[in-house]
């Protein structure tokens, strides 16, 4: 592949997904400047790995690089560790109290509060936040989410389910006056 062909292919495949790349990085880093750093590094990596891109889904390929770049960045910027996750990571196998079966509970009413919904999503541990962002904001299929996060489809299903349970529990808990 000539350099100019490569440049054209790289453009066709990655440029249309810049918004998606930034949106994912922004939700993962929770900071506009850090998100820009991560996206820029991800595009450089994507270019570096571009010869090995074989798939037909440029969006999940690029988003998987954004995600990996974020986790590398996180290791190197430990101040951004779990301290920002105000919802603690539940231990594997531990049942999350789930208000979903109780439609009269307050969490349903709080869905109309934009600030609370955002705060609850922002507070989720990143492994839950990322699947929700990919599903609800990017509208990716389970198969695509599996490709981005490098986990089996069955795990995508259970993780999304856990993420939503956590979100409901957090909304239930969040005080309406909390900032």
């Amino acid at each position, binding site marked *: 592949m000539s*350099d100019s062909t490569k*440049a054209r292919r790289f453009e066709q495949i990655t440029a*249309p997904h810049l918004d998606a790349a930034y*949106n994912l990085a922004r939700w993962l880093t929770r900071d506009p400047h850090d998100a820009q750093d991560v996206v820029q*590094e991800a595009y450089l990596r994507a*270019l570096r790995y571009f010869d090995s891109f074989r798939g037909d889904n440029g969006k999940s390929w690029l988003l998987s690089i954004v995600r990996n770049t974020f986790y*590398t960045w996180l290791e190197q910027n430990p101040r951004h560790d779990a301290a920002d996750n105000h919802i603690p990571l539940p231990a594997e196998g531990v049942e999350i109290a789930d208000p979903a079966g109780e439609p009269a509970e307050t969490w349903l009413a709080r869905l109309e509060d934009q600030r609370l919904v955002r705060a609850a999503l922002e507070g989720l541990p990143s492994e839950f936040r990322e699947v929700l962002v990919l599903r609800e904001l990017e509208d990716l299929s389970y198969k695509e989410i599996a490709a981005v996060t490098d986990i089996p489809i069955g795990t995508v299903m259970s993780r*999304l*389910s856990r993420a939503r349970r956590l979100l409901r529990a957090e909304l239930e808990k969040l005080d309406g006056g909390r900032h």
Partner: protein
Amino acid sequence: MDCAQAKPLLDAYCDGELSAGEAAGVEQHVRACAKCRARVEAQRALSSAVRRHATYHGAPDTLRARLRRELPTETTLAGARRSWRQIGAGLAAGVVATLAAQVLWMRHAGDGALTAEIVADHVRSLQANHLADVASTDQHTVKPWFAGKLDYSPPVRDLRSEGFPLEGGRLDHVDGRDVAALIYRRHQHVINVFVWPDTGASAPAALSRDGYNLLHWTQDGMHWWAVSELNAAELQEFVHALRTPAPAG
């Protein structure tokens, strides 16, 4: 299928990710079980709330500019390596790609043919003295007018208090289908807004063609195009007002 079998599948059921057989089984159970029906409704409400309230962060122009500046071209590779705040492994030596950087990081206009069609529809609406099929500044008149004419109900809001009064609506034709066209005005300038159902979410992307400014985005299950001869800044302001949820009450 009973509750114990159905419950772990409800998320995937709502996400449309079950096989036809499983989906039929869950559906049968949900029809019979009020508790699971409530769970499905609650799950849909949660999804919808996240989609409506969680901000979709479109790439800012500063990032586009940075990529335009920093992404290596053959000649700027060395410079880019110096100025890029490196996190993780640096660029592999020997990566040489000549990127048509200026073109690459322009906002993508999407389908050029669609852009042309939107502009043509806008121009036609001004020329043919056929701006509005329903001329009304009342959103409660304009919205119902579309009922029965389209297989969806377009969101209609007057933005008079934001300086963009609603003038009416029109049935138009875009991309092979009938769509709702909403007409707004800023001083003497007409803004045509075309809206039709679409999934996903995308931040507004700006482009211009033949002297007209356009913005298009996807939000809340609808794809939107705004087109006008209005300047780009005011059109942005209009789209911002349109995208901001109406104040409660």
